[in-house]
């Protein structure tokens, strides 16, 4: 008998863009004094100069809007959606990190959330000490951890280094240990946010397998967020699509993936970049995006010339290090190619506050087989943070490499991504 373990009713979460205060007492005082003397607000100037303060001040964003769904015991639900669609907000509310503006969640059993691997790990403590501390932070009692200690160490595969401070661990070992703790949490509902994107492939498989067995043997319910449609397909039996804070689909996982990927391609064809310029970031605005002299969401590359010219124009409120990143995906959103001069050449430029424009030329290999691809691009400070993310924002149709025989091979026909000379 499966019973309902989670009921989400009219769940909404509101965020206020454009702060009410400046977040700084002396600035607020200064602003107040200026107001008393009938002068202009000293902290509006910079923003107004670029014309977006008025537009974004006091804007209200519904990160989640009237979301309803029921989850039954034993379900593994994949939560799908672009960045900013409300996935993280949903998980944060479910794991009680933040509270909803409206609505109600009712549930049965203990909820354990793993929003980030290794939360609360302390570098100075040994692996053993961290297992206990991390377990306790995630809600386990001491004696529960003791009981599962050997199992955890065994799963992580780092018995040898268990009494070494984790600051000496490689990042792979770190992730292994952290995931091992989380996978052994004694709970009925497990919430996982893209943790599998780290660690080597072997371990990723092991994690997915572990989640599967935990679900089958112990009947745990799992909520899983990932951008990787493959992991979702393997692991989940249900899919939930969020779009701009609203639930657009909840049901069979295959349908969900199908619906999501096709919606991305559909959306790109019908929009111009202006529609997503307002991507939220407190210190950065993008005013113009031009790719290959076009402003539409679909780029066609033909004649064996797979060159992309990006122009991004916008303004910064504060000085930032910025670099460009680009990822090409196939129709199933499997990443195929990564471009990041910030990593590859260490090319990171410091931009002063004010207007900036970024030119980036990407030479994709000319021998890419024909197909419909999509791409994400980001402005980032490599390894520090992402300033602005455009996920699957552009559809790229590649006409393929014209061979001497006149034949053109197709990616979706199983001929692979590249046609080697």
């Amino acid at each position: 008998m499966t019973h309902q373990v989670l009921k989400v009713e009219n769940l909404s979460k509101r965020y206020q863009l454009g702060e009410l205060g400046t977040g700084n007492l002396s600035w607020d005082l200064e602003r107040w004094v200026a107001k008393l003397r009938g002068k202009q607000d000293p902290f509006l100037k910079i923003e107004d100069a670029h014309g977006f303060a008025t537009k974004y001040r006091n804007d209200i964003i519904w990160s989640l809007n009237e979301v309803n769904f029921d989850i039954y015991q034993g379900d593994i639900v994949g939560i799908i959606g672009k960045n900013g669609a409300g996935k993280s907000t949903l998980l944060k509310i479910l794991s009680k990190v933040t509270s909803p503006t409206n609505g109600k969640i009712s549930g049965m059993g203990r909820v354990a959330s793993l929003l980030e691997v290794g939360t609360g790990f302390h570098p100075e403590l040994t692996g053993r000490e961290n297992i206990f501390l991390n377990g306790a932070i995630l809600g386990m009692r001491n004696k529960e951890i003791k009981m599962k200690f050997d199992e955890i160490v065994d799963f992580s595969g780092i018995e040898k280094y268990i009494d070494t401070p984790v600051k000496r661990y490689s990042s792979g070992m770190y992730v292994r240990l952290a995931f091992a703790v989380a996978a052994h949490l004694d709970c009925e509902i497990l919430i996982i946010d893209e943790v599998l994107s780290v660690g080597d492939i072997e371990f990723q498989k092991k994690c997915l397998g572990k989640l599967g067995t935990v679900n089958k043997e112990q009947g745990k319910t799992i909520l899983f967020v990932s951008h990787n449609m493959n992991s979702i397909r393997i692991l989940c039996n249900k899919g939930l699509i969020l779009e701009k804070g609203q639930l657009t689909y909840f049901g069979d996982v295959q349908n969900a993936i199908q619906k999501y990927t096709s919606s991305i391609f559909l959306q790109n064809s019908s929009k111009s970049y202006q529609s997503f310029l307002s991507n939220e970031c407190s210190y950065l605005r993008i005013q113009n995006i031009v790719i290959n002299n076009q402003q539409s969401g679909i780029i066609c590359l033909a004649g064996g010339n797979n060159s992309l010219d990006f122009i991004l124009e916008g303004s910064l409120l504060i000085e930032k290090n910025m670099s460009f990143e680009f990822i090409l995906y196939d129709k199933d959103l499997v990443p195929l190619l990564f471009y990041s001069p910030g990593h590859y050449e260490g090319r990171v430029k410091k931009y002063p506050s004010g207007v900036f424009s970024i030119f980036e030329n990407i030479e994709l290999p000319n021998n890419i087989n024909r197909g419909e691809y999509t791409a994400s691009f980001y402005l980032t400070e490599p390894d520090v943070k992402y300033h602005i993310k455009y996920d699957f924002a552009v559809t790229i149709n590649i006409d393929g490499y014209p061979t001497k025989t006149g034949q053109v091979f197709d990616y979706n026909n199983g001929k692979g991504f590249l046609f080697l000379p």
Partner: protein
Amino acid sequence: MQDNFEWSIENKSSSLSAKLKEVWMHRDLLWLLVKKDFITFYKQTLLGPLWYFIQPLFTMFIFMFIFGKIGGFKTDGIPRSIFYMSGIILWNYFADCVTKTSTVFKDNSDLFGKVYFPRIILPISIVISNLVKFSIQFIFLIIITSYYIIFQKEQVGANYFIILFPLLIILMAILGLSIGLIISAMTTKYRDLSFLITFGVQILMFTTTVAYPLSSVDKSIQWIVELNPMTAVIETFRYGFLGKATFQWSNLIYSFSFSVIMLSIGVFVFNKVERNFIDTI
């Protein structure tokens, strides 16, 4: 069927008793956090726990020089070193609790943004970890005092009022915790407030009897010093432990009521802020 759910999440705070129950459920976490603080402290520093002695000792020498030699302040007939040392370690405990609790949201925003546990656990763990440091310093004080009694034949020593000692510690802990909680709630809105804390704590120190006894304060301004709730704590401690100070039940009762009121305010605002602070920080 619909009513079978065990818990719910809504836009309102849970009751105080539910909160207390939750804290009790997480008592292992509390203990582990205290242990972590202690381990990391002596692993990260060169001299480790020796700092626990060096810091108050240096402050003591500075006080002996400035207030004793230059200022010529009286010390109620208690040897200068023990007099200052007792004030310093009590004040340090209180001040550490305030400053560390007040930055709890900022210092742990990463953790708070990822996992839920009753947030109040962290401030409580800070107050308890500081107690470890305080105990070590207190033992140090006992050693110095014994030296004066045995070798210098000083007429100081504990009396029955020493049984108030546990109460004094609880008082200090509550005071430090609640003031820290209130400031921590305010710093989520105004970040620059945190710069004022160290400054404010320092000023507060001079309005209580760390560097001078209550008896030496001019009668007309004595009430200002007595207004500081730490005054009664320090004076009672010196009276019970060293036998010489101004002890008044009324002052102690004042401090006690003050801390209970502050604690209610502190828990209330902390509770209000903790639910949504992650959206604003």
